């Protein structure tokens, strides 16, 4: 692709999260909780070479750790993480759903003790099946919609 058709400039150093599910980029941002002073580009419903649509996020001068990157899998399990140094991809990997998530999600059960102003950190564990399901460690209920349960 020639430079004149690019919607967003390449980055020299930072992280590109590619193949985010369409319209999920803002959920990914909320999961990562990056401070708003970072320079970033957000592409929503971009055309994918593989067909269909995808979202892309580019963060300048931010190298996500594997632990941070895996949080992306909470809302977009197929996303790929590219670490860019000197304008080149030096590391590329898939986000892997974390086994335990602490503090980022709130329980979707309003009657859960974790929603009652107690001095605790929420905790969710990944189910053993392939359904990418998270269960609250307190009330043992499955999270209904992960993206909606990301703490604001």
């Amino acid at each position, binding site marked *: 692709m020639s430079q004149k058709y690019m919607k967003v400039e390449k980055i020299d150093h930072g992280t590109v999260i590619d193949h985010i599910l369409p319209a999920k980029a803002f959920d990914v941002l909320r999961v990562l909780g990056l401070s708003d002073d970072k320079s970033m580009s957000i592409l929503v419903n971009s055309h994918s070479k593989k067909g269909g649509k995808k979202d892309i996020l580019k963060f300048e001068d931010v190298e996500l750790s594997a632990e941070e990157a895996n949080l992306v899998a909470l809302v977009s399990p197929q996303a790929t993480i590219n670490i860019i140094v000197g304008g080149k991809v030096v590391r590329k990997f898939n986000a892997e759903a974390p086994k335990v998530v602490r503090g980022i999600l709130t329980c979707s*059960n309003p*009657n*859960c*003790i*974790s929603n*009652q*102003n*107690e*001095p*605790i950190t929420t905790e969710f564990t990944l189910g053993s099946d392939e359904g990418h399901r998270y269960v*609250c*460690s*307190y*009330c*043992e*209920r*499955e999270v209904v919609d992960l993206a909606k349960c990301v703490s604001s």
Partner: protein
Amino acid sequence: MRHVISVHDLSVEQIIDVLDRAEGMIDIARGEAVTDCLKGKVLGSIFFEPSTRTRLSFETAMNRLGGGVVGFAGTEATSVVKGETLADTIRMVSGYADAVVLRHPHEGAAKLATEFSDVPVLNAGDGAGQHPTQTLLDLFTIRTEMGRLEGLNISLVGDLRYGRTVHSLAFALSKFGNTINLVSPEGLEMPGEVVEHLEDSGQFGIACHSPEEVVSKTDILYVTRIQKERFPDPVEYEKVAGKYRIDPELVSQGPDNMIVMHPLPRINEITPEVDVMPQAKYWVQAFNGVPVRMALLSMVIGGD
């Protein structure tokens, strides 16, 4: 065993161990033998919600073991009304007692309590969540009355959607290999994850809306209350509740050795005429709460 929070935490071996110990406690529970194995020990009994059987049987169990009980039933006279968190209440009570038994309206409260308590916590029911000691006394009753915990045809009848006892019981029974039928009014069916679990473990019998459909092949008819508040229209409630009334005629349609259980309180889902039938085991079931809770207290406090 340190805490007793959820039936999911208990292995088959641990369940059998509790039931065996409870069996050895029956004479003491009846007052026909005496022990002071927990003499000098104190149980913190904190009930944020109404309870009759669970609270009284825990307190009886502790007294029968020679220990004492402190605590409250209802929060009116406590600092909870001033806004004290559960975490702080638990920290404080665990300083006074050797174990804490907790009933709370919010799911997951008992798990939270384990994080702030220095002593063992026993879950006496948290919201619509777990009530493991009820499940253990149900299993104890089944084993005592039927002689085994496996190969039984069990029909769970009533409000299967909101009734926490039937969720826990279904999971626990599935650890042993049984056939479980689900009988409920429309809209009050068993939650999907429990049905899925029974199907996956090959223990799902049938699901239907009428006890008549299953009673002839049932070893245990486990009846639960249909809660009036689940129905916006009282007429609709009366209609549904009428279809789920267990009377002598229905009980007589079951096999000779069928038993009828109920976690109580009942409203009118089992008619009083059933009480005198040999199949009625819900009073024995309520009594069994004492030896089972004695077994648990002796294990977590006594360190046996």
